[in-house]
């Protein structure tokens, strides 16, 4: 079937889809945030088991979203996939290792015959909970600060730092985004705990713990956003494809795309309102405000990284090698084919919603955990 859609439109469409998947991933990292509390929030074994089971019933969504995010990047922007994964090797490997140990930890933790011991798998969950949001935040930070790579005329990438991506950790702005994502995921984890676990003591502890995590989150978020708005950015000349530095580029991007700015502002307000309800009310619903706000804020940040003639993966080694949604994308045919596939995403979201509700209808409580019942307990 012939469809007159331009390559440029599809590049923007796919940047939107990838951004949406990235923002959903950050929201779903409430699982990692929750995992990071298993040693410090739980007062006894039952509380720990309740937290692990609350997160354990959702870990696969986060995992699957990460894999789909990677697959979508590969399919739509293969030059980014090849350059970043093949170059920033150690950062990506650290992220992947943390997910490898997570995938088995839930299922094996409390199983009889577990030769590695319960504690080992709890440490695995903690490591994944603490490391992956931090590192994913740092990697996304390089979308705004740049990375050390070059691309030759055959479009083969080469990493120009012997640290293979670890150097990104030393950049304060990257680190601030990493810390922001880490504390945001922890806050979302606490919000999910009060939403899905029916336990007065755990509820009170989670709300109390939200205060200090909110302070840390807001400090990181403000630092990152302010530095983003006042910093130079990597602009692209749409006629020549040349990449150059532009003052206040990301501020300009927000102003040039008012809808994205509105999404960002509403998202920020929703996250703040979620924090308010978490700390100052006894409501069980902060996750919905915090979650929706997170998706909107992260989506807006991804969009300003790639839209409005901006390099979404700039090279600080060689500006000319910087990646844009124009030079890094798949062909028109592939993007168009993939567009048809992407129309299935709403159907996927609907069945996820339906299944999620079916499982979450009854909150987790001590009785369920201690009596085991018919359930599959981690």
């Amino acid at each position, binding site marked *: 079937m012939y469809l007159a859609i331009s390559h440029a439109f599809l590049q923007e469409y796919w940047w939107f889809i990838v951004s949406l998947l990235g923002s959903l991933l950050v929201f779903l990292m409430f699982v990692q945030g929750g995992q990071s509390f298993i040693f410090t929030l739980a007062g006894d074994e039952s509380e720990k088991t309740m937290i692990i089971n609350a997160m354990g019933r959702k870990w696969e969504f986060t995992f699957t979203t990460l894999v789909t995010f990677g697959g979508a990047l590969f*399919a739509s922007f293969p030059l980014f*996939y090849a350059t970043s994964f093949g*170059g920033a090797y150690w950062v990506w490997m650290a992220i992947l290792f943390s997910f*490898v*140990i997570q995938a088995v930890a839930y299922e094996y933790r409390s199983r009889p015959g577990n030769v590695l011991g319960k504690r080992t798998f709890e440490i695995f969950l903690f490591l994944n909970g603490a490391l992956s949001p931090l590192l994913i935040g740092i990697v996304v930070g390089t979308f705004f600060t740049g990375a050390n790579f070059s691309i030759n005329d*055959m479009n083969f990438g080469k990493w120009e730092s012997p640290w293979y991506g670890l150097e990104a950790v030393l950049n304060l702005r990257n680190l601030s985004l990493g810390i922001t994502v880490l504390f945001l995921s922890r806050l979302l984890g606490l919000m999910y705990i009060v939403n899905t676990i029916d336990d007065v003591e755990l509820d009170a502890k989670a709300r109390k713990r939200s205060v200090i995590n909110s302070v840390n989150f807001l400090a990181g978020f403000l630092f990152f956003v302010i530095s983003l708005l006042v910093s130079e950015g990597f602009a692209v000349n749409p006629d020549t494809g040349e990449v150059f530095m532009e003052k206040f580029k990301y501020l300009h991007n927000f102003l040039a795309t008012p809808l994205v700015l509105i999404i960002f502002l509403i998202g920020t307000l929703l996250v703040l309102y979620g924090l308010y309800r978490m700390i100052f009310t006894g409501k069980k619903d902060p996750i919905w405000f915090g979650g929706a706000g997170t998706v909107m804020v992260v989506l807006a940040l991804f969009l300003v990284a790639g839209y409005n003639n901006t390099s979404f993966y700039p090279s600080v080694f060689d500006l000319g090698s910087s990646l844009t949604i124009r030079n890094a994308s*798949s*062909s028109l045919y592939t993007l168009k084919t*993939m567009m048809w596939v992407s129309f299935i995403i709403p159907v996927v979201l609907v069945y*996820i919603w339906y299944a999620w509700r079916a499982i979450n209808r009854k909150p987790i409580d001590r009785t369920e955990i201690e009596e085991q019942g018919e359930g599959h307990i981690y």
Partner: protein
Amino acid sequence: MLENIDLSLVNWSRAQFALTALYHWLFVPLTLGLSFILVIMETKYFRTGSEVWKKITRFWMKLFGINFAIGVSTGIILEFQFGTNWSNYSWFVGDIFGAPLAIEGILAFFMESTFIAVMFFGWGKVSKRFHLVSTWLVAIGASLSALWILVAGAWMENPVGMVFNPETARNEMNNFWEVLTNPVAIDKFFHTVTSGFVLASLFVIAISAWFILKNREKDMALKSIKVAAVFGFFASVVLIFTGDTSARTLAKVQPVKFAAMEAHYAGENNAGLTVIGFLKDVGELDGFTEKKVVAKIEIPSLLSIMTNGSKNSYVPGIKDFVYGNEEHNILSAEEKMRRGREARDLLFSYKEAKKTGNEVLADELKIKFDDAEFQQDCFKYFGYAFLDKPGDIVPNVPIVFYSFHIMVALGFLFILIQILAWFYSYRNNLDTKKWFLRLAIFILPLAYVAQETGWIVTELGRQPWVIQDLMPVSIAVSHVSSATVQLTFWLFTILFTALLVAEISIMKRQIQNGPKIEEE
């Protein structure tokens, strides 16, 4: 493309990919097959309302969960490793290869992960019907996932539905339908999925046999064996049929691999099929060692019949592909290397013209590049430009030959086990056949051996190509240091081995506990 190829980097990158693939493949087949066995069992529970079937379903579901977790764990590395360790490859074919991976995520992974949560946690929380539908969707999701990754893998063995774009220096998809209906993909999908069904069937038969020998849970064990035997038998029939069609397709699209599977060095008419045999060195040729099959049992003319449908037909051997065979219209590797270099040089000239701003020359060269005759005569052999010598096209024949024959022999043994299990179940005297029950337990590790040898045939048989004739493995690697990949290789080895030990130990204890005792 790559000026200096670091062979140590290439070898460690290959080792790491092989390690992760082999570990991953220990768990995936059981997931594929056991998910459908669960479907049958739970459907029986749904239709009869019998608590016995519920207990049976839940027991096998627990084992499914233990296996599934480690399969997921080892799988994530594979997807991202295309980027981390094979970044040149990822660019060269990302326009085609990435699409099936993304579709796998959207269509299959979400289905699996969503409904597996209902399958595990939904007992007593959702209706029986919704639970059963969820179990069905997990099984369908698992097979859909296999479909898409195998479509991607098949494309590497038989690249179709694409055109090379010199502007971007990559292959670009121009026919998705051709990619999806690639004959290699169809064969591969049915062969791989049914091999998983067979392994799961043997898994259920072996564990049930253990229960019967221990005089425990006999009712559950006998019912499970009956389901597994019937399911496994039909899967084996399809497996053998698709094995045959796969070989036929291979003979056309990966003829050197096909010849290596049979250690068929010299082409001949009336070529026989080796049932069993051993390899003996004959002598060194140009960059490879010729071998001869000795002490062999051979079925005369069968290879010719299987390959071309006629006993007089000519089946080319490895030497035909290295040295060429004019009579049978087979180009030598040397000639293909020459043509590949012509294509590569044209690409370099085009890039140089673009770089220096000589658009007139660039346009002329592009027209030549796009010419159908040039594509067919030269670009088709692009990857040969990067080979050092003609003998490089020969894979490791002994490993491929022995792996192939072990896999085939075991496949026929398995169908015998399934027939016997079905027969004794039908006669209601399975519990008296102690020898068979012991044999069924002994067979289970061999089912895993068959899986791994199948994988070895596929992956080692296609060397040196990562994409058949277009890209050798050596130029597909990422530009990272060899020491970096060595370190991650050993980290993976330690981690996956530790997890495998944990998995086996947990699985063993769960089986010993049986369906009644849930926790210690």
